[in-house]
């Protein structure tokens, strides 16, 4: 990947963060921590990897994405709006009466959202069904899946892990957002999920662990995963819950937060500064 492409993807990730903070900021509360931690992986998927048509969201041969940690909806909505699935202004309607952008992802409301999620664990199985359908139809398309590290507490995740191996879902790439936290705090204090990659490996998956905020590492890991076609792949993203907004990163219980204008503006200023740095570099390549 050349420098320019890398910078473009970093820019996309930063835009996703900015729009996500704005969305939640307008409402004053939301699941901001776990939305910000997956922004980089979303940027790589939608900015480079996925075969999609934003003007035809239901295109039958598209790659699909299931955000099983459905509460990260706002990050997904930012990504889709920036890709042109719907107007940017729609982002202002998060959780408003009659909105098409609810807290948790809903395939019947939002253009570009491929599956309804929110009850943790359930998105995993639905992604397996989608990947299986692609395989049964001999399609080249892929299924991408986001799972929370806390979500891995659900037995359904591991029922799915067995299934995906049994049915050789080589077209499935699952990301586990290992931000080390769930709702009640650190996963190691609530329900220690241990070595996630080793667990998936022991279920017969191809698994790797990378820095989930390193765009290049994400690109490389996905490319490697796509070469594995006889079994499912798991990419464990080591991330920071609330990534990009210092006050949020430092907050211990940062799952569902109330934020005021000062908090939002400070966070946006930090992200705008990152953005300015990227733009400056981009101008020079």
């Amino acid at each position, binding site marked *: 990947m050349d420098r320019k492409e890398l910078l473009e993807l970093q820019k996309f990730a930063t835009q996703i963060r900015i729009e996500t903070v704005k969305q939640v900021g307008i409402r004053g509360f939301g699941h901001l921590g776990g939305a910000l931690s997956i922004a980089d992986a979303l940027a790589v998927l939608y900015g480079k990897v996925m075969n999609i048509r934003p003007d035809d969201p239901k295109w039958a041969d598209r790659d699909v994405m299931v955000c099983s940690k459905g509460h990260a909806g706002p990050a997904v909505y930012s990504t889709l709006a920036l890709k042109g699935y719907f107007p940017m202004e729609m982002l202002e309607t998060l*959780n408003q009466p009659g909105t098409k952008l609810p807290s*948790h992802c809903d395939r019947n409301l939002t253009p570009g959202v491929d599956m309804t999620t*929110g009850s943790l664990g359930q998105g995993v199985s639905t992604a397996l069904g989608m990947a299986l359908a692609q395989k049964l139809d001999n399609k080249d398309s892929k299924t991408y899946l986001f799972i929370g590290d806390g979500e891995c507490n*659900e*037995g359904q995740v591991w029922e799915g892990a067995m299934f995906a191996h049994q049915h050789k879902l080589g077209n499935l790439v699952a990301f586990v957002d290992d931000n080390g936290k769930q709702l*009640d705090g650190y996963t190691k204090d*609530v329900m220690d999920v241990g070595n996630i990659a080793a667990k998936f490996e022991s279920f017969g998956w191809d698994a790797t662990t990378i820095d989930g905020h390193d765009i290049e590492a994400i690109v490389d890991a996905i490319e490697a995963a796509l070469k594995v076609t006889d079994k499912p792949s798991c990419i464990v993203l080591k991330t920071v819950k609330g990534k990009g907004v210092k006050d949020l990163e430092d907050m211990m219980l940062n799952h569902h937060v109330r934020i005021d204008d000062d908090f939002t503006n400070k966070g946006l200023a930090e992200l705008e500064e990152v953005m300015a740095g990227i733009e400056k570099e981009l101008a020079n390549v």
Partner: protein
Amino acid sequence: MFKVIYNGEIEAKAHKDVFGNTLAELAAEDKDVVYLDADLMNSSGTYKFWKENPTRAINCGISEANMMGVAAGLSAMGKKPFAHTFGPFASRRCFDQVFLSIAYAKNNVRIYGSDAGVTAAFNGGTHMPFEDMALMRAIPHATVIDVADGVELAAVLKQSKDREGLTYIRSTRKNNYQIYDPSSEFEIGKGNIIRDGKDATIIACGIMVGESMKAADMLAEKGLDVRVVDMFTVKPVDAELVKKCAEETGAIVTAENHNIVGGLGDAVSAVLLEECPVPLKKVGVNDEFGQVGPQDYLQEVYGLTAENVAKTVEEIIASKG
């Protein structure tokens, strides 16, 4: 005895604080009380209790089915488990474990499902239980409760501590209209006449109790004298009281923050049909899924308002002729 202090104001204390404080009290008074949660302690007012009492509060992580099985095992060994998660995850996400390991195996477990119905508000459709009472009612011998305010929540939590079998309690995590004076006492299985009247009876539970009191005030201005019953125990429903209200007022409107399929309305109408048929209308969610939005907006959308209750009462009184 209970004392009604309803005056249209919202209660001071959020139910999550009532829950946290009551659990701490129960745990202090009875060494066998154990509290289980599925990664929602910081959402339900018990985070501090967990941090201070790590052996009395057991965080099960996001594993509701496992949690219900663990609760059953604790009960089998003589503990008194209280398990909490949001209503949908406390009912449909783990239904077979609740049915078999808890109820069928005759273990004694109290389940608290918070964010009842539209009170799930901004968490939206996936988190909005309109069917939890229907599911729990379908379990033999289960006790199913939808509380009207925090005073009642504290009381039923305390009473359920030594209750046999499965007790399911639902409520908001936030604040409802205040209904009862804190000195009030309640009996599980007995409905409360919280406002007397002779033209019709509104039988309500949960957030609809306050709405029904408001509706009765609105109707009084039109010269209609309407009784309001807080039927917080939806199962076993107080059949004697239902019959008495039917006989004395001749018409019944039920009001619930739940699907009209399988909830309070069905429980009351079953009694009426067999014992004392009088006109009945149900106010509740008309077989719809939940959706995201502010609670007051959702109450409008689904007709869970004092205005709709009042309108329905007027209709039924007119139909009595």
